[in-house]
């Protein structure tokens, strides 16, 4: 009993000391950061401040990986699938999100974490993850060709689809493929119901016979396309990517972006007015939020203002995503 009683009293002490240490180190770091030039930037952005405007603009436009909570969760789920032992019914994941919500970025990030082995000295390439774009219509032969292209295999383009399928099975086994990522899976619906069914069956067979986990990504229509087949809908566990509103999450996102953008003066990105303006102008699309902030940052450098001010955010020439199809630029 004494031991049990003693433990809870001891724990907070440890926590306190740990939190003290953490806060101390944080303070020390922030002190150090204040000593350095451009304390409003992180170390990478601070290094970029030594470069020319052109280099800074290029770096801004290139962007960088931002480990947002939903992206982290998606990658963790994919890591779990990658490590899944071969079972009769391999689990799969369906990443659903609106257009420009970061689906492809997450998939590419995951692919970059598991690159193929291109060591010329090795005899067989090890390639745990293969990523393709779904063909523009549910054409199975095209789908197989894309897989073979992705693994850089030699194949006869005019071969029948069953030959390509056999070749894929052989190559997957040799290369140790564990996961097949299919982006733009909503292309599936660009065909007749029979074609859609054939394509879904092909996906199912591929997963069953090669024991490869499938990860598909697409817009909401993909979800509907998969739901048409109860076997597929039960196999593909959906993961919905969030939309961005004027809330704390978006505030944190903009505050993080602010630290990464190499401009001389602290910006107003995390102010409520800026947050509201950016979310409204980007209409809650993650990709558009990034693009808008990038354009504002580029304008800030080009104008010499060197600050992402509210005035600049409001004044930048930006067409909201919903108006783009009807937009005619003024002459």
């Amino acid at each position, binding site marked *: 009993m004494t031991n049990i009683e003693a433990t809870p009293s001891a724990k907070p002490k440890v926590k306190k000391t740990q939190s003290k240490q953490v806060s101390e180190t944080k303070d020390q770091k922030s002190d150090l950061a204040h000593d350095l030039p451009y304390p409003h930037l992180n170390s990478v952005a601070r290094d970029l401040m030594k470069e020319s405007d052109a280099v800074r603009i290029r770096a801004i436009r290139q962007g960088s990986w931002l480990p947002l909570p939903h992206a982290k969760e998606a990658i963790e789920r994919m890591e779990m699938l990658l490590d899944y032992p071969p079972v009769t019914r391999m689990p799969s994941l369906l990443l659903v999100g609106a257009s420009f919500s970061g689906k492809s970025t997450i998939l590419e990030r995951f692919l970059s974490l598991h690159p193929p082995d*291109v060591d010329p000295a090795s005899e067989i390439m090890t390639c745990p993850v*293969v*990523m393709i774009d779904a063909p523009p219509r549910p054409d199975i032969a095209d789908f197989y060709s894309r897989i073979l292209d992705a693994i850089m295999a030699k194949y006869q383009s005019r071969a029948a689809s069953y030959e390509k399928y056999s070749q894929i099975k052989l190559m997957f086994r040799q290369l140790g493929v564990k996961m097949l990522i299919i982006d733009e899976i909503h292309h599936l619906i660009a065909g007749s119901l029979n074609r859609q069914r054939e394509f879904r069956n092909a996906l199912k067979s591929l997963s069953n016979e090669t024991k490869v986990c499938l990860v598909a990504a697409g817009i909401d229509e993909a979800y509907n396309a998969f739901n048409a087949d109860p076997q597929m809908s039960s196999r593909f566990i959906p993961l919905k990517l969030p939309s961005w509103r004027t809330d704390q999450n978006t505030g944190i996102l903009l505050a993080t972006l602010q630290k990464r953008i190499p401009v001389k003066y602290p910006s107003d990105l995390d102010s409520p007015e800026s947050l509201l303006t950016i979310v409204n102008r980007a209409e809650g699309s993650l990709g558009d939020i990034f693009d808008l902030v990038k354009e504002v940052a580029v304008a800030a450098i080009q104008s010499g203002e060197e600050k992402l001010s509210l005035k600049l955010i409001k004044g930048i020439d930006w067409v909201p995503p919903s108006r783009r199809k009807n937009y005619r630029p003024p002459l």
Partner: protein
Amino acid sequence: MARFHQDLWPIRYKPLEDELLSSWLVRLAHGHGLKVQSFCNMLYGNKRQIWNRDIDRLAPQWLLDDLKLHTGATQMQAEQTTLRIFDGVLVKHYREAGPLQWIQLMQMYHRKREGYGQQFCPICLQEDKVSYFRKTWRLAIKTMCLKHNCMLMDRCPQCDSAVSYHRIGMGQPNHVEFDPLSTCHECSFDLRAASAKPVKVYNEEAFDWLRRVVSDIDDFSAGKSVKIDLKEVSLFHHMTAMVSKERNRYHLGQHVADMVGADDYVPINTNRVALESYQCHVRNQYMQFAAWLLVDPQVRLHQACRARAIRHNFLLRDMKDPPAWYEDCVNNRIATRARPFFERRHKINLDSRADEIDLTY
């Protein structure tokens, strides 16, 4: 997927020890799940044909360069797969067409091999993790496996077809997973299951001599630094060819067979057949006979001349560049010792030449 190294193939097997170019290429194609003809047509088109010629012997540079590029093999590894490495070692003037000394003839007919030029050791194939064919198995001088002390084979024991591993999968449409290279393309018999025959030794001394020669060639082919004298192997070839044929009433082979007590000697009765297309066991016998002569050439060639099994002038005939010791031996020893018989036959007085005759033997 643009991140991949664009030139490297996903399957990039490297040549195995002493592997032939054709064997390497077939393994690469099968590794990709393709027939070798489809694979090569895809890569090189119809204008650059590979399988209707002896590619191990031809070994064009563009093919080697391409394989190096796509497999990550080194220059050395790629070049070591071709029979060109025997240029200046077993062959004096390497040519792309026509017979070559010690290189087995494939007798190409389009994409078929009508000759039994590709030999194999069934036990080596059994022991291989991945069955493959060796360069030395294309050499006429190699008739036995020194590792397993057995004769090489040159045809399928079940259907007598020549070994053509590049034709595995022919007539089997939609095939992706191919049989190993040790499968007979004609009857699908697994050559690994063939029973290897032991080597018949006619004379221990001659057999040891032959073993040493073959061992040196094995080592050279495996990339070890071994000195092989082209003149010596050419002499051995010359002697084997002489043993194999009867010239008019001269029958050197029968003479050696009598000397070593071989009762299964059968000469080749035509000059049109090259040594490089004899059956493996026949070649082995002739080579053992030739080795027996070369173990002690002064005595044994002299005996053969005396027994009228060979004329001394045949010993140097057609030999453009014999080893100096052999030329000396034939001209100054055997010829001068043969001359008395020749001269006696023509009633020439021998007394004036008595000093020249070496009576050692």
